[in-house]
């Protein structure tokens, strides 16, 4: 069976994007490479959020908490126990997965806004817990980690981002992905079709949290420092903004969302277009504007562009096969 032209076009775009990302550091300074690494961090976190909110329909406003768990896992193992930083990533992912499952359990009972606010509460509570157990976490004075060059951070960051993307893509195009989407679209229909809601909802949270934890670990490596303020509310809100601006339910929008949420505020802060006081005003206005003009996010535009590359729309699935509505 020949693959649809849309899928080929999608793969071609993917390869081009990957190549651009891979070759970009050659043209960038060390500082810009670090910035690129931070975009990778947001990419992974937004991807994680997309899995649980975009694909499974479980709203989470608190992914900063999972990032914190991964970040502190990496920091404590590296700082206090001398682990190699990359070796801590699987541990961070495991810790994140466990945390995700724990948070996912109330998800079985809460719906919609109550779940969202519970995750919001978790996001606020985790930094406070980190402050309280300062013996382990370094408290507000935090923990310093060995630093890395911008190039190392960029390469590692995007390698992991790429791997996570592929993993997500594989997960979402298979049975699990279909189950997730079924849960999002109609829980009752899904349950009557044999999808065990409890298993899939918890699994979605677990996987999503594991990814977010890895993003958190990378975040700590990029800054070579961690303290509770690093994982404050703003981080969770930015990840959410990035996910929605990028477009929920689409893996392609994630890159746009990550770029938006990392580059725009930093660009405004360090650029000369606005006084420092005006920066949040402009950023807030842009977010509102984007929501008004592109309420389904950048992915909507991308989808339209790529749909024109498919055969005359007789397919029930959209060209890329990774999103479904």
């Amino acid at each position: 069976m020949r693959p649809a032209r849309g899928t080929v076009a999608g793969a071609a775009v993917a390869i081009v994007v990957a190549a651009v990302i891979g070759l970009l550091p050659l043209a960038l300074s060390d500082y810009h490479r670090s910035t690129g690494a931070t975009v990778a961090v947001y990419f992974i976190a937004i991807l994680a959020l997309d899995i649980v909110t975009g694909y499974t329909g479980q709203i989470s406003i608190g992914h900063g908490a999972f990032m914190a768990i991964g970040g502190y896992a990496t920091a404590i193992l590296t700082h206090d126990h001398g682990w190699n930083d990359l070796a801590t990533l699987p541990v961070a992912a495991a810790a994140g997965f466990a945390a995700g499952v724990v948070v996912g359990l109330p998800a079985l009972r809460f719906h919609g806004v109550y779940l969202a606010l519970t995750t919001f509460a978790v996001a606020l509570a985790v930094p406070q817990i980190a402050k309280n157990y300062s013996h382990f976490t370094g408290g507000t004075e935090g923990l310093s980690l060995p630093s890395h060059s911008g190039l190392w951070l960029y390469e590692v960051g995007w390698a992991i981002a790429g791997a996570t993307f592929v993993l997500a893509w594989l997960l979402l195009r298979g049975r699990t992905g279909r189950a997730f989407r079924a849960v999002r679209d109609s829980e009752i229909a899904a349950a009557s079709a044999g999808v065990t809601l409890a298993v899939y909802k918890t699994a979605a949270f677990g996987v999503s949290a594991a990814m977010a934890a890895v993003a958190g670990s990378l975040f700590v490596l990029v800054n070579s420092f961690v303290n509770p303020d690093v994982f404050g509310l703003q981080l969770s809100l930015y990840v959410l903004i990035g996910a929605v601006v990028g477009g929920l339910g689409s893996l392609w929008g994630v890159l746009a969302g990550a770029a938006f949420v990392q580059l725009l505020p930093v660009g405004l802060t360090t650029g000369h277009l606005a006084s420092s006081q005006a920066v949040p005003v402009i950023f807030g206005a842009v977010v509102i504007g984007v929501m008004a003009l592109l309420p389904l996010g950048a992915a909507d535009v991308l989808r339209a562009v790529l749909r024109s590359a498919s055969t005359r729309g007789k397919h029930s699935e959209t060209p890329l096969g990774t999103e479904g509505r």
Partner: protein
Amino acid sequence: MTRRGRPSTSWIVPLGLGAVCALLAIGSLRSSLFAQQTVSGLANGGIYASLAVALVLIYRATEVINFAQGAIATFTTYVAWQLMQWGLSYWPAFACTLGIAFGGGFVLELVAIRPVERRGSVLSVVIAAIGLLILVEGSIGWIWGNEVKFMPTPFPAHIYTVGGVAFSRQDLSTIAISLVAVLVLWLFFQFTKVGLAMRAAAVRPDAARLVGVRVSWMLSLGWGLAAALGAVAGMMAAASPSVLLQPSMMDGILIYAFAAAVVGGLESAAGAVVAALLIGVLLNLVTTYVHFVGPALQLPVAFVIMLVVLLVKPSGLFGRTRVRRV
């Protein structure tokens, strides 16, 4: 497949609340420290209550969690401050601010929310509200600067001492004003035509349209009223010595207001008020009496309370259990 609503357990909540009130009364009679903390906890709770009801208002009408509510409240408080700088005395400035807040909330809904609402999902509107939060808080610093300002208090520093406990007129007035504001709103919704139209628009927008209600104007009205309530919360907060007038003033209060709104059941204003008062008192008592809870854990404890309530009653204390039919 149907999931039936729970068998009637509507006696649990009033019983529980009654028990809590009894405990508080007994504790206050036995210890002046307890009484002191309870009263100041109620005052804090009054502030959370005004903001919580504003959140419920908007949620009921639009299913949107308005993250920007605290920032809007702060902005209107700065407006009040500015009016006083220009020579107005406290109560006239208060009244003007309520009007300005109402108008401002109305306009904000029109300009920032409606364009998003028309084309997007609830989540898009929530993101727009987050954008609004960033924008409004930023604009306060932009317009008035970030240094701390003094907000005059209308209540003379009069202290009533009853049995060794010092109640300030401030605390009592804050509780009174917050409750009055919520009561006025309730009366408005129950007994005026516009109030009825707003309730109709929130619950059944399509049916309401059929009888001639301009649903979109009702939404803007709702935002206006919520902003006015927020202004009350902001001004009461700024009058208290533990809150300084600065752009991030309502950040902490907003969090407790959210918790209160959720615990009360997001669709019940009365629930939000009760929950807010409860949270205010419990937080003070926990700080005073529970020692293994370090200060940093006060916020997580508030959320544990919220979680416990939700696990027992997933739609909050006074929310209606959802019945889902296929």
